[in-house]
């Protein structure tokens, strides 16, 4: 079945060769982008755009039109390109950061949700929500290298530092699949909580954290054994367990602190990674999902899906400095400062 799918795709991707050439041209002509744009990028599922926020001024300074239903976003290493999974157009848009334009599209399976680039930036690993598969797509040729069957509604994707192991969740099957990047083989399956969503790899390389939205948990998985070490539960003041629906998370570069968005509980949780203790909660907007740190790690940017805004959290005071209206149903955040 996999071989068949790939063969079928090749025909389609062949026609995209011109697009690949364009991408190559853009790559070649792009000047060294040493300094960031200083902006925060927010993808908006319902308004088909990425809102650009200037965090210094705390205001919206522009928008980039994308294909339909932009969700997960990642920069390439030098931050000249921003990749955006567009769920209703079945593509990953490639945005030239300098010109703020979509310069290429990478066709994927139905409803791409989350993805990662391989460390050598040759391959993109995309979860296709409606197709129950993880695709490995060669960026140069736009050919599906592997299509790995997953449980229904695959979502979060993580890739090991060496690029050899891919982790992908299945929201419906309550599992994390462990995939060998080289041959696309599923080497292990880890049953976690209900409706697992997204990952972080702890900076020490040892653990994989995965949020389980419906059971309100973060499972900490030992990457050496694929066994669950510990399960974190959250309970911000004034909420009940059933209201806690964690989705996205991020960690400081030194591996000391993690931040988890709690969805319907309208808070983010601050977790000390070493002790795995919850240090506190910060009230943000309605149903926070995407979360990223500023470069200096003094601030947190949180996308609130049901209040259509971005909360800017000052981490020293643990207070929201400002909530900035963005597009409709903001999903993910990336920071280029």
């Amino acid at each position, binding site marked *: *079945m996999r071989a068949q799918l790939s063969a079928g795709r090749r025909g389609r991707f062949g026609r995209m060769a011109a697009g690949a050439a364009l991408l190559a041209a853009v790559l070649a002509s792009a000047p060294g982008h040493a300094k960031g744009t200083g902006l925060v990028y927010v993808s908006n599922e319902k308004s088909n755009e990425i809102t650009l926020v200037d965090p210094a001024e705390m205001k919206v300074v522009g928008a980039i039109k994308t294909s339909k239903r932009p969700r997960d976003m990642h920069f390439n290493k030098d931050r000249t390109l921003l990749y955006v999974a567009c769920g209703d157009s079945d593509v990953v848009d490639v945005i030239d950061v300098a010109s703020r334009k979509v310069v290429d599209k990478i066709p994927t399976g139905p409803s791409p949700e989350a993805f990662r680039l391989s460390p050598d930036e040759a391959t993109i690993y995309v979860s296709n*929500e409606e197709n129950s598969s993880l695709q490995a797509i060669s960026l140069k040729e736009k050919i599906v290298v592997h299509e790995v069957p997953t449980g*229904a509604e695959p979502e979060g994707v993580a890739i090991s530092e060496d690029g050899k192991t891919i982790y992908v969740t299945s929201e419906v099957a309550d599992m994390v699949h462990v995939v060998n990047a080289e*041959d696309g*083989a599923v080497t292990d399956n880890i*049953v976690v909580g209900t409706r697992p969503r997204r990952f972080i790899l702890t900076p020490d390389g040892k653990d994989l954290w995965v949020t389980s939205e419906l059971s309100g948990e973060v499972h900490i998985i030992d990457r050496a054994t694929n066994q669950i070490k510990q399960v974190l539960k959250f309970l911000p003041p004034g909420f009940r367990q059933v209201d806690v629906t964690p989705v996205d998370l991020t960690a400081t570069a030194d591996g000391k602190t993690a931040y988890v968005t709690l969805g319907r509980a309208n808070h983010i949780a601050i977790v000390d990674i070493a002790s795995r203790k919850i240090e506190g909660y910060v009230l943000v907007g309605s149903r926070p999902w995407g979360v990223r740190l500023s470069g200096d790690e003094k601030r947190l940017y949180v996308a609130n899906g049901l209040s259509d805004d971005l909360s800017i959290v000052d981490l020293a005071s643990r207070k929201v400095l400002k909530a900035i209206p963005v597009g409709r149903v903001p999903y993910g955040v990336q920071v280029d400062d």
Partner: protein
Amino acid sequence: MTSGRAGLAALAVLAALAAAPALAQAQKPPPKDLRVGYVALAQDARYDSDRAYARIPLRPLGRPVAGAEVAVKESESVAKVLGMRLSLEQASGASVQELAATVKTWAAEQDIHYVVTDLSGPDLKALAAAVADAPVLLLNATAPDDDLRGAACLANVAHTMPSDAMLADALVQYLVARKWTTILALQGSLPEDAAAIAALQRAATRFGAKVVEVRPFQLTNDPRQRDQNNVALLTGRAEYDVVYVADADGEYARYVPYETQRPRPVVGSAGLSPAAWHWAWERNGGPQLTSRFEKAAGRRPVSQDWAAWAAVKAVVQAAVRTRSTDYAATRAYLLGDAMNLDGVKGNPMSFRAWDRQLRQPLFLATDNAIIERAPVRGFLHRVNELDTLGVDEPETKCKS
């Protein structure tokens, strides 16, 4: 996918000799069967095609077995990882007696202990009584009858279909939130319509609305009965904020909106209807479930389809969390407090201990939009907001 997975498992062993879990998996005994039954009557007036074509809210558009099949399919991967093989065994009978014999044979000989039922309230009651001695839990996916959760409740039935009381509570919560608190009710001639009116009265009392009058209607063009068939006449001479129609048949209700004497919204069997599922739900993985169902069944899913899906998912969740296919172990989990069913409506779901009804959010939907999700904000409960919908523990009449 199956052959691919088998190949992958072999590779895994070669690739990861150090990975003990993978090795252990490869040496596991053959998979344990987790079989779920599904029963329906071959002839069932609820599925008359002359009603389905009109897409009447609250009526099924087709047999909900497709929902159960979608649940089996999407659960295969996790079942396989846990060394289980999941399957759905279907039986369609000419009578309840025939179905009862099938269910008993299943339990005695084929290790099938969970049976999803696509039966009306009275048929379900008869089946449950006939198989009361068998080790079987029936999962009611289509009957909303309150007495099945109340005085006539049976210990071998759990319900994923919401009750009439839950549906009425959801609707009245919304009306009260909008301050549309005076209701003119129109009642059809079926027993289901009487049950719906009773549920409405109860909900109005609970949440502070008022049913100003209940007027019977007749589906006829007889001019001598015009005061009971003409909507304008039927909705005149009264003060009200909304018109509620109880019409399980649905043919009368669909002509009530825009025909009322006063310019008032219509709710209930037409207009704004409470539902366990609606294709327009676009959060919590709703579109994905709708899309999987559409692919499988060739039509959009409605409440009964969702309830059949949820019934199988509940069994799977019990097996996954107990790592077992044993009936006693899975049943205890399924009906216990730890149950955490993802019904793709936002809240984790579990069965109420007092009447084995699945607690769940409900939608208030028009033809093409979900206007609100109940429990409506502001309706609070001391334990779980979902229990503001339906009969709560202190008021239950269910003794078994």
